């Protein structure tokens, strides 16, 4: 039971953590309001409220949270998150291609492989999105990926190509944009 929760925390599934914390907070508020309304005691200490609130959280919140974490929909969403992470990995790995001390033929072969892997990663995401009926790749992310693909698919295939600082800077900037867009996409998936 706790392993699931710890795994979620390690994975950075903050939406689940926020739900748990939100449930705890709402429980305390309800308890506070009830104690005010019914005047069960003239004085209710903060410690008593927190203790009761925590008991309610454990009794109701944890089973609900675990039910959510082990639900089919959440399992699919977790798998889908893995696909998005894989897309990021493909682009991050590709950034190393130009920095390797390789011949032009080897660089070009690596870039061709990157294009194939990128298509496969997008296929997985599109299939997952189709299956879930939501979470299509946002147009801003598509644009960022396209810009990066143009950069990687053009200069290294040109006659007399040399690696310049400008190209490396451009590559880093575009990769940074992709990382930002993918993070936004991941948060959108988590919070829905």
């Amino acid at each position, binding site marked *: 039971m706790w392993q699931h929760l710890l795994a979620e925390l390690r994975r950075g599934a903050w939406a689940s953590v926020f739900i748990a914390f939100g449930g705890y907070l709402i429980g305390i508020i309800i308890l506070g309001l009830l104690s005010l309304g019914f005047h069960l005691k003239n004085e209710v200490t903060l410690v008593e409220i927190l203790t009761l609130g925590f008991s309610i959280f454990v009794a109701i919140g944890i089973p609900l949270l675990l039910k959510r974490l082990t639900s089919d929909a959440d399992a699919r969403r977790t798998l889908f998150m893995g696909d998005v992470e894989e897309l990021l990995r493909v682009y991050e790995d590709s950034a190393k291609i130009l920095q390797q001390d390789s011949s032009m033929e080897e660089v070009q072969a690596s870039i061709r492989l990157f294009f194939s892997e990128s298509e496969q990663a997008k296929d997985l995401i599109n299939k997952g999105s189709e299956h879930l009926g939501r979470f299509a790749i946002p147009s801003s992310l598509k644009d960022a990926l396209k810009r990066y693909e143009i950069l990687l698919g053009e200069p290294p*295939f040109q*006659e007399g190509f040399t690696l310049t600082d400008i190209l490396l800077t451009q590559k880093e900037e575009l990769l940074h944009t992709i990382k930002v867009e993918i993070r936004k996409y991941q948060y959108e998936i988590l919070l829905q």
Partner: protein
Amino acid sequence: MSITASHRESDAITINIAKDFTNAPGGRYCKDGPYSGEEFLDKILRPKYEQAKNERKLLIIELDGVYGYPSSFVSGSFGLLSSECKKRKENLLEHISFVSSSPSRIERFELEIRDPTQREKF
């Protein structure tokens, strides 16, 4: 390099890029090296497209079996042919159809044909 474009159906002409051209496409222009988009366009794509158009057949392009398509190759072949067709007010996608196990790969090629000037916007 031998063109083995086969007639899969009586009303279609097929180009299998891996078999008829190369499994490792190059850059945009012939001067950039072997198996460029320009070379593919001049030697295979344009002649087969004209033939398909004249014979009122569909041109089927098989994309699988290749290590990966650099964006410059796609733009230098299909993008350029699309620009030529647009000038003649022809819709290239009405005459051409892509086959691949990867829908994203097909989308890349179709997007290039729909908007061959997209890279200028970036």
